[in-house]
């Protein structure tokens, strides 16, 4: 039986962004969460493998207690086992620390994995770094931005589009892939499944201590980067404001920007006939 591990992340729904001004990190405890879209695609890829081959899916996340919600969602969708890494000591980890912590958890709970799947990037911090760094931690062959997976025995074949090259790569298990949003469209969670998943109590919770970390070791082995400041990007440009009758505004706009638009669409846009202007 194939052992699949899917790393997922809860990201804040961005209705409001509660930043901690002092530490420059997001107050994740204050934001309502959702499963990161690319992680959903990674889970879908695992579910599709399980539809054709004998496989067991373990989902794992690190986050505040509320991150349990996305594990329940994953269980409802068909994952078999869920692990929550949750400890205040681990809050504010950068990708270096996160990948280290994930490695410890995977080695503790499912050391005999065949394939680890991650989303290619998260919609909040967008680093796309945790997957490759986890591969490095576990010394695995890996491929990022994977669009299609095929498994034959112990061989994994992946297809992807990187820097305008269409590539087919092969590697042997155990391996790691990060899944792009091109393919593996996520299925929807049935409400019944979700309710069942909330009734069962099968989420393993790991804290820092159980993974062999304490405050001192997290300090030395953990994050390498420090966020000094976070700020909202200001309204970018001194913008041009047009108002008035729609026909007038449209003509003013096209006269002013006909060349710019023409260049982008590769056609020419005429200036307004002078007679019309009077």
């Amino acid at each position, binding site marked *: 039986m194939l052992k699949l591990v899917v790393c997922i992340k809860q990201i804040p729904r961005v209705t409001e962004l509660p930043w901690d001004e002092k530490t420059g990190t997001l107050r994740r405890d204050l934001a309502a969460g959702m499963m990161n879209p690319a992680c959903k695609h990674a889970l879908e890829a695992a579910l599709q493998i399980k539809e054709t081959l004998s496989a067991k899916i373990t989902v794992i996340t690190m986050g505040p207690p509320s991150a349990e919600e996305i594990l329940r969602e994953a269980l409802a969708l068909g994952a078999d086992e869920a692990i929550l890494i949750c400890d205040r000591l681990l809050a504010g980890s950068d990708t270096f620390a996160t990948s280290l912590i994930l490695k410890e958890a995977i080695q503790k709970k499912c050391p005999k994995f065949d394939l680890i799947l991650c989303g290619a990037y998260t*919609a909040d911090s967008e680093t796309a770094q945790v997957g490759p760094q986890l591969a490095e931690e576990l010394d695995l062959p890996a491929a*990022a931005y994977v669009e299609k997976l095929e498994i034959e025995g112990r061989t994994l074949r992946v297809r992807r589009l990187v820097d305008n090259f269409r590539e087919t790569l092969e*590697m042997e298990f155990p391996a790691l892939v990060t899944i792009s949003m091109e393919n593996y469209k996520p299925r929807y969670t049935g409400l019944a499944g979700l309710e069942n998943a909330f009734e069962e109590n099968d989420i393993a919770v790991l804290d820092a201590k159980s993974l062999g970390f304490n405050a001192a070791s997290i300090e030395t082995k953990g994050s390498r*980067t420090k966020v000094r400041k*976070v700020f909202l*990007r200001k309204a970018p440009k001194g913008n041009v404001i047009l*108002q008035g009758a729609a026909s007038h505004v*449209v003509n003013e706009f096209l006269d002013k920007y006909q060349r710019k638009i023409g260049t982008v669409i590769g056609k020419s846009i005429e200036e307004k006939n002078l007679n019309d202007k009077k």
Partner: protein
Amino acid sequence: MTKNRKKSIWVFGDYRNYYQNRVTLQLIARAVALAKTIDAEVCALIFGYEIDEWIMEYTAHGADRILAIDDPALKSYSTERYLAIIEKLAKERDPEIILIGATDFGREFAPRLAKRLKTGLSADCVGLEITEDGLLLQIAPSFGGNMLAEIVTEFHRPQMATVRPGTFKEIPHDYERTAIVERLPLMKGLPKPRVRLIEYERSIEKEHTIENASVIVCGGRGMGNKEKFKKLQELAKLLGGDVGATRPVVYAGWADHNVLVGQAGKHIKPKILFSFGISGAIQHTAGLGEADFIVAINKNPQATMLKMADVAVVGDASDVLNHLIKELRKRIRE
């Protein structure tokens, strides 16, 4: 290790296609400016087979030193080989900073390299400065560029960043320039790559998707109703672009889920974005990335979308749309 060696800023020579090569040139240019502040040299790394072209080009564009390994075994890009090579070189030479283009390759390769060198890395930076305390200040976007973070790697070296293409301007070439070119042999005993490249072909054109469309016409609730929303398709067609939608519009059934633009949907980066009747909630704007030129139409002059726009049109979205379609039909010449 001799510590009297001059500090070095390394730029990874990513040259596999035209676009990747330009990023390398942009990074060399920025490294030249940063190097002045911290009294360092700029060193370009070039690994491959028959690479003289790149040695010449990176010298002409500002590198002080080139570390080159020219070997048939490096004919195609290999993350695993490059990792092993740079790991050895970095341990010998102790670079202060390593910059890598945020190409697809760079963003897969740099995280592994940072991990192997046990140092920090920030992703897809849109700015690099030197702080008063001499650190590399890495300015990285998050939430689709709505937020920026200033990041430093205080205690570990090298300081590493991947940098978004187009962030910096390359220095014009000067073929009179010279650099110290170190041609190194391929190290012996490198581990055999475990990832096998079976096939690859240059994809002439990325398949057309909303993510790479150069013109996008987005509509929100302010379009009024489904019929009026459908007219966005006409404008998109005239401009050779795609239609995008906000979440309320998708929920209302005016548009398909696969054109949802925003945090939970597609992330777009068009050259021109038309935004009709969209207020600009962050769930939506988090998907806008770096639209070059935004034209927003909204009744409410206080709408966030208007404030983000290059051209803000205050008016009824559907009304302006109809006039724009009519006027463009008259004016567009093939």
